[in-house]
């Protein structure tokens, strides 16, 4: 247990002192929160109802999808994981610790956004705080697991950026973060069902913000949790200690299974 705590402590500190991780964990999401809060609430007053969940999801995606994969990739490519292996660090810890670390950073950013949104921009506060915290945690777990999976399967730095952006940009546009999901054309609304952020936003709206939900928000939360567990499990399954050793290499296409809950919702939704 001491080893796990030491590992987590180191990982959490790195998220604060490494400049690129500090940027993606805190500076970029909070700068965007300030910018969107100032601009969007001015031109679209209904955004005040959305600002807290929208910016929390935005922050979670920045931290997990843009910030987390690259350190995972570079640790594998530079031999750090090999060093860990020959010193007895279990693979499960290499997956688990950064995911918990990312969740911790996301929760801190969520707390800052929640604390400042109302006094700074008149943002609506959650009506059900318990469910709000639950959704924050599940959303953070979902994004962190997805970010870890991207880091595990990406072949190079360009791959991490590309795979991260595949989720990041459409999520910002289509998941109801910047505009209500109901105003999207039906085809794009269907595409949005493939994005975890859509389910996170729906769960926030329906379970904690007192806003109308497009589908059953509890189903959204369960889908989000199922996607989290799948992405996490696949990260463990597909983990490689290094890129040079072809032993036991598994096809990265298995990672597509992480989309299964969202695909099911797309089909039955």
């Amino acid at each position: 247990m001491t080893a796990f705590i030491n590992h987590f402590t180191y990982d959490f500190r790195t998220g604060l002192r490494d400049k690129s991780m500090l940027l993606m964990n805190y500076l970029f999401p909070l700068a965007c929160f300030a910018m969107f809060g100032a601009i969007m609430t001015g031109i679209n007053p209904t955004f005040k109802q959305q600002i807290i969940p929208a910016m929390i999801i935005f922050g979670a995606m920045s931290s997990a999808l843009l910030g987390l994969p690259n350190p995972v990739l570079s640790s594998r490519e530079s031999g750090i994981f090999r060093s860990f292996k020959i010193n007895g660090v279990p693979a499960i810890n290499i997956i688990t610790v950064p995911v918990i670390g990312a969740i911790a950073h996301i929760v801190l950013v969520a707390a800052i956004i929640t604390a400042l949104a109302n006094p700074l921009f008149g943002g609506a506060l959650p009506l059900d705080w318990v469910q709000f915290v639950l959704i924050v945690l599940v959303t953070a777990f979902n994004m962190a697991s997805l970010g870890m999976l991207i880091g595990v399967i990406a072949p190079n730095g360009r791959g991490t950026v590309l795979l991260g952006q595949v989720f990041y940009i459409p999520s910002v546009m289509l998941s109801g973060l910047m505009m209500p999901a109901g105003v999207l054309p039906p085809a794009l609304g269907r595409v949005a069902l493939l994005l975890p952020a859509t389910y996170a936003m729906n769960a926030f709206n329906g379970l904690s913000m007192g806003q109308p939900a497009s589908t059953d928000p509890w189903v959204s939360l369960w889908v989000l949790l199922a996607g989290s567990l799948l992405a996490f499990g696949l990260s463990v399954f597909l983990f490689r200690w290094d890129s040079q050793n072809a032993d036991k290499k598994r096809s990265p296409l298995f990672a597509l299974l992480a989309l299964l809950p969202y695909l099911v919702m797309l089909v039955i939704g």
Partner: protein
Amino acid sequence: MEENVIEVKNFRKTYGSFVAVDDISFEVRRGEIFGLLGPNGAGKTSTLESLEGLRQPDGGTLSILGVDPSREMGKLVKVIGVQLQASGLPASMTPVEAVNFFCSYHGVAPRYDLLERLGLKEKKAEQFSGLSTGQQRRLALALAIAHNPQVLFLDEPTAGLDVPSRLELHDMMRELQKAGTTIILATHDMAEAEKMAHRVAIMLKGKIAATGTPAQLTATGEGLTKISVSSEQAILNSNGIIFPGVNKHLVTDEYAVYYSTNAGQSVSAILEYLKARNDKLIDLRVERPSLEERFLEITQDNQ
């Protein structure tokens, strides 16, 4: 020093159709410093990494203190220490964090004393990327020995180190060896191998081309001792006299150079020759064959 700590039997490692290591066998005895030498691509790294449990053998058996590295990683990490490569630690990790991190995973108390011993006390809070190459390698050594492993793998341990740091590292290797640690030393530095290793194996093209003590290996070559002589009148430079035991002679700069199979006999004859002709000796150098020369002979023979 008789018990075998490492046993490699008919070990083979391939990458696709490329055979990196081809059916090699050797053993390393307890408390011995064993040098693994060879040019790039000889198969040293594949052998080391397979022994360290990082790669799966394609044939043969490997054993370290009875542990199969390919199947028993949990047991293996308790008995081996591996000096990490230069990039083997996260850039932002400090020496203190690294000691905490690795010691806790090995289940031992943090060995901060090693940071002091290896001259890293002042740098204990510096991030790994801010350390010099020498400091990074010393930290890697500290981490490798922090859990008192019975077998220590050192891969180019002195690369990038200045002279005092090299000497310090050599002292530490001797100290560890005297305490019973078995050391596998992979190096390109023949002088280091000759100075430190009890036995060496020279690998070429995936095979072991030669094995034995440095003295045994140098003796099995041409075994010629180099005698360089410089005198005031330089009478040796102008004539082609061949002294007893000498089978090669050449002149370089101000020196007459002889290669002898019997250095004592040759030197006596050279001195008598100079004395008889009233030529005064300025300099006399006798160099026995080095491991490096033997290594070059072996590599040339195999090309």
